[in-house]
């Protein structure tokens, strides 16, 4: 995998790529939401990076900040109430947070594209699927109506929508859930992005359809050597497609690792809890493990390690000291005071 990754960095082409810079690098991102109830600290120093051709899965419960990170990368965060308090987002080494509105708009769609959880509400109900794919081609690439239509049909074919010629004239509500998500993917690929952010792309779908969509995403990603951020709370989805995994909790990354090592030996009690709460066929009849308690309110994040009120391994130090990012091995880190012990258990 790593050799492949290095290869793709060298191959990647951008507006003004900085040699050796990762495709996307998020560093120490801080975001807060100022609401009437107070200041909600949604992101508290999030850092991750994605290379071309690589899939990073971002795992976490609702409210852990995984979607907010993605929205900040795309520049579609609602501001207000959102405020970016610090950090950096570099695409090909270019700082996006300092880029002009015009430049950011250029990056959207053609540099980084995004697909959303609920394709029914994410697609505009009053325009045909074709129109919504074509408008980017016409506005951004200056294509004629006819060429854009032809390209839209090609894209629908690409995502394996049967009868693309007919489908292109239909409205989103005339599509089934899975087909709608495929159309959404086709739309996101219209400008040939180098990077795709998939925000819970299969959450609203049936299990069988979920697998088809994930396969499609994986296939397209490999074919086009795209970098992909897959946001999900479903560990089952992650296992098959992710190269690396970042686990988020209360607006922080608590563990980052390659997928295999993480499944084999989680380096954070929260990850361990998540893995243990997966139903397993070889443990039928046994009670399912759960992580006790609820995710903390972001208005009042616990002192020390934010996970300590729910942690089975909690010690006194966890209540007072914020754990640093322990580098466990190259490419693997955990924000737990006892990460080494967990790994060597």
């Amino acid at each position, binding site marked *: 995998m790593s050799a492949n990754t290095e290869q793709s960095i060298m191959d990647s082409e951008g507006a003004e790529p900085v040699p050796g810079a990762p495709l996307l690098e998020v560093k120490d991102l801080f975001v807060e939401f100022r609401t009437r109830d107070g200041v909600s600290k949604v992101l508290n120093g999030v850092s991750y990076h994605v290379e071309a051709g690589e899939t990073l899965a971002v795992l976490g419960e609702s409210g852990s900040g995984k979607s907010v990170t993605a929205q900040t990368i*795309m520049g*579609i965060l*609602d501001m207000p109430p959102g405020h970016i308090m610090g950090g950096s987002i570099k695409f090909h080494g270019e700082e996006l947070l300092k880029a002009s509105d015009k430049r950011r*708009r*250029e*990056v*959207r*769609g*053609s540099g980084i*594209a*995004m697909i*959303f959880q*609920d394709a029914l*509400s*994410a*697609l*505009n*109900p*009053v*325009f*045909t699927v074709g129109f919504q794919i074509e*408008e*980017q081609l016409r*506005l*951004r690439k200056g294509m004629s109506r006819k060429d854009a239509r032809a390209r839209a049909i090609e894209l629908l074919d690409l995502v394996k929508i049967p009868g693309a010629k007919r489908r292109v004239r239909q*409205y989103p*509500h005339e599509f089934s859930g899975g087909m709608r998500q495929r159309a959404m993917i086709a*739309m996101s690929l219209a*400008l040939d992005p180098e990077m795709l952010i998939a925000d819970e792309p299969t959450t609203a779908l049936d299990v069988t359809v979920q697998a088809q969509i994930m396969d499609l995403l994986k296939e397209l990603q490999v074919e086009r050597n795209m970098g992909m951020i897959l946001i999900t709370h479903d560990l089952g989805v992650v296992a098959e497609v992710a190269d690396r995994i970042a686990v988020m909790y209360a607006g922080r990354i608590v563990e980052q690792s390659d997928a295999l090592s993480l499944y084999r030996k989680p380096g954070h009690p929260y990850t361990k809890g998540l893995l243990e709460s997966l139903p397993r066929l070889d443990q039928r009849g046994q009670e399912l493990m759960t992580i006790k308690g609820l995710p903390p309110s972001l208005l009042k994040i616990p002192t020390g390690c934010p996970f300590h009120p729910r942690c089975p391994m909690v010690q006194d130090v966890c209540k007072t000291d914020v754990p640093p990012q322990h580098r466990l091995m190259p490419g693997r880190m955990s924000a737990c005071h006892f990460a080494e012990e967990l790994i060597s258990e």
Partner: protein
Amino acid sequence: MGRYVLRRLLQLIPVFIGTTFLIYWLVWSLPGDPFAGKCGDRPCPEAFVAAMTAKFNLGDPVVVQYGKYMMNLLQGDFGITFSGISVGDRIATAYPNTIRLALVALAIEAVIGISAGILTGLRGRGFLDNLVLVTTLFLISLPVFVTGFVLQIVLGFELGWIKTTVSESPAPWGQLIVPGFVLGSLSMAYVTRLTRSSIAENRRSDYVRTAVAKGLPQSRVVGVHLLRNSAIPVITFLGTDLGSLMGGAIITEGIFNIKGIGNLVYRGILSKEGVIVTGVVTLLVMVYLLSNLIVDMLYAVLDPRIRYD
């Protein structure tokens, strides 16, 4: 769509018969002698009453009278008044004035209402939003005759900017601006609020976020994706409103002395000219039913999720 329209048109028949019969029956069965005061101070001569009773089928039961009236009406004959004036002619001279007034009112509603709604809907809370909310609340709480008389007195008598009455027929467009504003003020306030809430609701919707994520310019996100969706309830409201505006405005036409259909029906009621009242009201029922049908079809055109079949 075709079958739906046909079904709706068929549905119009019983509604049309029901409403017009009710009107006919109400007008002609009103207590009081239709010939009272028609012949100066003296009661009308027997011969006149007998002739008129025969001419207007007043001797028949109401249902038969109604049937005969409708048969004539379907052939385009609105009948004549007691004094021998053709009701059709009266309507033909009055209706253009009402249509003009309705169009002016609708234009004012649409232009001011939608612009104010879009502006406040996009900007959210703030001075402008509060100003518009208070103004619209003010307009909604004021009865039309108050707005009408106040504007007539202030702009007409005190400042002399406008003519206080519009006596010409057909009424000149310029003179209809203030009456149009009076007539449209209430709906204008509703249009403003409807647009505002519709824009504010859709502004944060997922598909607007998608449009931004696609890298579309702000003007296109708002002008195409946001407006197209927010316009659906507003346009249907305006359509329905045009239907009722076409029905004439008794109060506004009365205040500004516009010789429209509202004025005609009002005078018809006062002078117990049953033929005028039934004729005009029948026409209005038809206009209203048809405009409702058009609005329903427009709704399906605007929102592809709605399909009639």
